């Protein structure tokens, strides 16, 4: 049975037909063409499919599309500024060499958006915990932590002014 979902995706109002049994991951990838949202396990173990729903990072593979009525969904495709400028987190990922195969990258960036968006500062240990829902086999998390830490610091400096 097809239903119609009304929600906001990356700032734009969207109406899309979906199957009631469908996960948000499938709707975003297959119906809306938002292929930054990756599939690594489909059972909430790897974090590759992370997006923000009303500002909260969730695993879209275990989140039903049906729960998204009226919600605001954000994916990596929605992060660049109006003139295409990169979000500070994206910049930090490039500059800290936090990207390798890149398959985990969009998901971790979305968690970082949530972390930075909290406006709080965190210790390295706290950041380790905050990104521990993401599996990355390439980087040992070292440069990812550097990038997230840098984005948090930069944002804090700006906000703190």
């Amino acid at each position, binding site marked *: 049975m097809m239903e119609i979902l009304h929600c906001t995706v990356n700032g734009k109002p969207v109406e899309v037909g979906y199957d009631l*049994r469908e996960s948000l991951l499938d709707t975003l*990838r297959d119906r809306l063409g*938002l*292929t*930054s*949202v*990756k*599939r*690594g*396990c*489909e*059972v909430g*173990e*790897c974090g*590759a499919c992370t997006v923000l729903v009303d500002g909260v990072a969730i695993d879209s593979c275990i989140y039903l599309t049906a729960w998204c009525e009226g919600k605001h969904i954000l*994916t*990596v*495709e929605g*992060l*660049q500024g109006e003139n295409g400028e*990169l979000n500070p987190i*994206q910049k930090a*990922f*490039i*500059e800290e*060499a*936090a*990207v*390798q*195969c*890149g*398959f*985990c*990258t*969009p998901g971790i*960036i979305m968690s970082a958006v949530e972390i930075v968006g909290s406006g709080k500062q965190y210790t390295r240990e706290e*950041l*380790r*915990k905050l*990104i*521990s*829902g*993401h*599996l*990355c*086999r*390439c*980087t*040992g*998390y*070292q*440069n*990812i*932590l550097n990038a997230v830490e840098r984005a948090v610091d930069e944002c804090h400096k700006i906000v703190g002014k």
Partner: protein
Amino acid sequence: MEIGRSIHRVDALDKVTGRAKYTDDFRGQGVLVARILHSTIANGVVKDMDLTEARKVPGVVKILTCFDVPDIQFPTPGHPWSVEAAHQDVADRKLLARRVRIYGEDIAVVVAEDEIAAEHALKAIKVTYEEYPVYTDPEAAMAPGAVAIHDEHPDNILRHTCFDVLTPGAGGRGVDEVFADPAYRHFEAHIDTQAVQHCHIENPVSYAWMEGERIVVVSSTQIPHIVRRVIGQALGIGWGKVRVIKPYIGGGFGNKQEVLYEPLNAWITTQIGGRKVKLELTREETFQNTRSRHAIHFDVKAAVDPASMRLMARTCRAVSNQGGYASHGHSIVANAVTGFRQTYPDAFAHRSDAYTVYTNLGSTGAMRGYGIPQCNFAGECFMDDIAREMGWDPMAFRLKNIMPLGYVDPTNGITCHSTGLAECIRKGAAFMDWDKLRAEYAKPQTGPVRRGIGMAVFSYKTGVWPISLETASARVILNQDGTVQLQLGATEIGQGGDTVFSQMCAQAIGIPTEDVHIVSFQDTDTAPFDTGAYASRQTYVTGKAIKKAGESFRAKVLDFAAGLTNLDRGNLDIRGRDVVSTVSGEAVLSLADLAMEAFYSLSHCEHITAEETVQCKNNTFAFGACFAEVEVDIPVGKIKVLRIVNVHDSGRLINPKLAEAQVHGGMSMGLGYALSEEMKYDDKGRLLNGNLLDYKLPTAMDHPELHALFVETDDPSGPFGNKALGEPPAIPVAGAVRNAVLQATGVAIHRLPMNPQRMVEAFTEAGLIEKGE
């Protein structure tokens, strides 16, 4: 200098914006899906399959079974093909198997309009089996009377090799003679390593369709040109009828250096009129049906001279659990025993004895390090055991025995053209404050929480010569704006290949890296030939092809410039974005102007391109060391790594920042290998923890800060002084952690992983934990 610049990755922007396209991102709408039916026994034969109910499921397009596939056995590993039959890979699989050899064998496939229809149909297929006993360990499979898993190997031994190697110029004393000499102390150990998996975050996925009479396959692979060959072999068709496209891939680590499901998918499309079909494995299928690192069991012996601290002779018997299919065959355990021998060349002699044995567990294949992480763990445990018994400092003992510059392997001729190993050891020791900590932790410790510091070293070949062919090619094309396109058959798999290839090309021509546009994706119809990403070979072998093509391109540009300017060709050079006169030092023509002339001149239009192939008939050793400081909580068996550093000699670094990132990833994989990862099977051959929840892959919380240091040698055989880097970082970590635990607790562990359960058992046995009543 473009070599040695830490530029940002050329693919980073696409990857952080989500624009980078991986296999599944191209698929588009209306693609059929294929799902595989897996056996529910581990050893036996499919007698019959009833498809009546499955065919009735709405949305099912076609069901194909092991009774339908071509009667062709094909090889799967990503090796260069050998034209000599004796060196060809083992051809032991069919597209779908009637003869079941592992639990979860591929026995049928359902093609449907969507996943749900396919899943329903899979559940409705009824299978009748004839069952045989299940062999989970090599000893049982080799026992007399065991059922042959493959008829070609009645004793289940895929291969057994035994070599006695005498050190040249050492007087011809063999292993037995040396061991009989009463002047030497004898040591022996048994060491077990476990099966682990690559766990690339993107599961294997491909889609296939037909264009005319040809088959097109898009796949997440490290080796597109080899995929093309194996599809041709598996389907019994001309290799030119196959076109393989490789987009970005979400990690491979050796698992995608094997042609596992592309041939099946290519065949499926031929059975449904060439319609486009996708075959994507779930994470659980990836665990069960792809490859893993071999569990290898070692028995090692050494005769040691107490006076000189030298290893006089050693023996190494290795038994490798291959699982149900040959995959890379005997080459991995052969590499393991060779690697064990090479790092510390014995004064007189060495004997290696290696077995590859079929069992009914999941098949094992290439994984980052190709047998060396296993033998390194064995070898580095053994070195510390000997040092401890003899009262020697483990670092001093290693320094007395490591491979010297100029070493030539007596069996294969691989030569140590450069080494910074001793320097790596000293640098790591200084970073960790080894002398001080080693002395401090050597004082008696009595509490439940104890500390120690340990180390391990390794050597690693660069590429596969002379065991196999090494060849690569590169194409450079001038663009209208004076920039170039670089096209390769070598692949970016996350390691940063595209970035360092661009830097090498820029260096060879004399232009900035920003003016090199690399074609990232390989399409076997257009990409030059290269065997792909494995064996840490690409910067070395493909690097030579890039250098040669860049230099030949540069020569053509300068010829053209001399013609245009009427200047002496010998006085022209390319610097930055200009052709300059070496006499005046002034720019005489910009490359952009030159390019416009070359493209559009009415009198002398010439499209400047260069394409070169190299066959690399050389090899060289990369080296490194790992130091780890640990805290062991004895009652709960928990090992906490407090500090860790890897120090590498990979020759000259093309991009230091990316090299460092590569080392972090390898260290992480090494920590997982040391402390938590293990594929667990039951006695029916079923994998018990085939998912990312139960299989303990490290998270950010499981690691300390990862430190990567380098000692840059200038290797005379490398195209830019460089040598292997991709695989090595994963190698020495487990040994270093284990040796730190040995110092902390006095307990010598000989089995991986060192997870809390194992450690509590070991500490209990050693009397550090009281036995429960």
